[in-house]
């Protein structure tokens, strides 16, 4: 069974890049456009790992991570934050919200894949 990954990013470009990178790595990829959409998609799936952006309309990454952690089903799903924000306080906020790890954009394809494997149970 390939690892399934949900990638949440409001940028079409980023979603396409994530889809490409992750499918090439053999993952089963689902995509969502913002936090709200992400939670909707999660209602119908159980990914092994979630990768999410922070700055998004409707519901940002922090809200999304908190939402995931609140749900009984996805409470223990690893969440990697993918963001251009490298400021320590933002990492801290993401962590406090429940993020498992973080990757700073622009991401290196291999490193992203490794990071996903690294946190995937």
């Amino acid at each position, binding site marked *: 069974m390939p690892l399934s990954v949900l990638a949440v990013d*409001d*940028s*079409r*470009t*980023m979603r*396409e*890049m994530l889809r*490409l990178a992750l499918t090439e790595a053999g993952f089963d990829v*689902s995509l969502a456009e913002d936090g709200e*959409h992400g939670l*909707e*998609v999660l*209602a*119908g*799936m*159980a990914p092994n790992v979630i990768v999410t952006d922070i*700055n*998004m*309309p409707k519901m940002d990454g922090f809200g999304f991570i908190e939402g995931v*952690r609140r749900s009984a*089903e996805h*409470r*223990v*799903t*690893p*969440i990697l934050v993918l963001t*251009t924000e*490298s400021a320590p306080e933002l990492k*801290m906020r993401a*962590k406090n919200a*429940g*993020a*498992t*790890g*973080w*990757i*700073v*954009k*622009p*991401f*290196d394809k291999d*490193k992203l894949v*490794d*990071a996903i*494997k*690294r*946190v*995937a*149970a």
Partner: protein
Amino acid sequence: MDSMAEIKQTFFQECDDLLGELETGLIDMEGGDGDCETVAAIFRAVHSIKGGAGAFGLDKLVAFAHIFETTLDEVRADRLEATPEVLSVLLRSSDVLADLVRAAQNDEELGDDATAGLVEELSAFVGDKAGAADEAPAGGEDISFAPLGTAIDLDDAFGDLDDVEENQSFTIKFRPMPELYANANETVLLFRNLAQMGDVTVACDESQIPTLDEIDPEGAYLAWTIIVHTSHSKDELLEIFEFVEDDCTLEITSEEPSDDADEPELADDEALPVEEESPPAKADRAPDEAASGDDVASEDNVVSLVEKKEKPAAKEQASKEKDTSDATIRVNLGRIDRLVNLVGELVINQAMLTQGVIDAGLERGDSVEAGLEELKQLTREIQDSVMAIRAQPVKALFQRMSRIVREAARATEKSVHLVMEGEMTEVDKTVVERLADPLTHMIRNAVDHGLEKAETRIANGKPAEGTVSLTAAHRSGRVVIEVSDDGAGINRERVRNIAIEKGLISEEDKLSDSDIDNLLFMPGFSTVEKVSNLSGRGVGMDVVKRAIQAVGGRIMISSQPGKGSTFSISLPLTLAILDGMVVEVADQTLVVPLTAIVETLKPTPSDTHELGAGSKVISIRGEFIPVIDAGLTMGYRAEPADPLTGVVLSVETEDGARAAVIVDTIQDQRQVVIKSLEENYGHVDSVAAATILGDGRIALILDVDAIIAREGEALSFHENSLAATG
């Protein structure tokens, strides 16, 4: 095209959207309509452009987006007030950002001078915060770890011990806090990763596990001491703990652990078989769950596994629902055009079928006839739907114009307010694209020539700030785009004098106000004595008019002295299908575009007047309209037809010139599919295009403007002499 090139294309398309959002947001803020969500949205727009640009190594774009984003972040955090000065800089920054995107798209380099000034201005707003531009890419290097194996081969680990003399030994003391597990980190995965770096020995400290009734299922009670023999550095080992270092106590030392009593689990590290405590044994569970022996938790795991298997169908369902609600797909334009073409063929085929049924002489009310009527209806609906795919809101085009206004206002030192309405009005994609140049020129003209200088405006009791409005609306099956200004209006005396000076008209010519306004569209006419660097650019209104006509549009002027001018562009909704009147001329079938026809009539003998040399005019409600014999003009016959035996189509061109076109009979009024004659045959004067009729014959579509223009000189002569005598 490879995948990355495709994504890059997506990036530039997304940039267009984001730049549009950015500009709209900034303009809203300028107009006092911006709230914190507006600021957040514009920040996100620049942020996303920066993110994508970083992925494609567009360094200049990243650098500028970074300082721009930093400034917006200051505004977002209320540390920088969005004063008019700040907004002006932000708006110009959005223009430059757009330039940088464009340059990147065209693989061009924008000179540093294009950004330097603004970078300085933006830096002044944010102070030293701007310096972190390279932080993001550098951060990308944070993650570095070796590929994973599936389990730790501890036998090998021991076997290799002797061979790794050059390796260093590290002792890692690791005690997770509950937060580590709460954030879905797994200690067992950390051990797996460590095992990839060398040989590991793991010992677990279970001493903190409380009694069962005291145990908190979300607590963290285990600690580990891990000895790693590795050629990797301490920093590399630390990287493995990157995500968890704040959620645990971690100590990495390069010495062997001491034999102190406070390390009971390693008191006899040779004797302690690592296997017993080895992570794989517990790999499938969170360590604290394993430790607590909580069977309920294990059952939960089972349940969730079963659920996982059931989910894919639900997942598809969910994504499908999302798709139909607001998702879009990108489709190659070629495919849509093929569909448009096929629908065109379908329309022709349906017309042929109708003709065939008529020829077969079926009875009225026959089921074939009813079915055919339904087919006609469906064809029409398919056609409308396909056309709607090609339709795009004029919003993006309008947004570009706000920049043009800003630049024109700066260049002319005028204060200008742009009002836009009807941005969501949809027009065919090609029409939208081809409108950009003419609209740019019209907007520049409105600012440059239309609006007065502030002093003049104040002296005339107008507000110092001039208003240019750009509106779009649907009007009787066409789209009307208007550019108006509240300036001085057209100086008709000056226009007339220039036209005389340039020999376009003679001093004796008597022209109506509208005639004079329309002189602006004549080739070679320019109201500016010296070409300004703004409106000039070698493009006159005649070029604007031609560009609009090329997409089947018409342009009209109306102007009121002292109050301003309005240029209206009327456009067809589609370029593929035309509502036409099918007429017969000397046994030939022609199609006359319905939009050009004002009325049809059967003239009486008293309506027609000879004007010498075979020229005729028809009087329609007291107005004399020159007669054009379609048969003669098209070369179908040598002798002029008698207007009294035929039908007269009163037609009007874009600029309001009228003519009475004589045809023999009117056959039908229907939609025809436009087939380019240029592409399939060659250019024919007086013919706009061709179409295929229901019976399979080709019919030419008359170019009303061209035939009137061809007769132009004679016509204007007639008009003038009539005006002079009548």
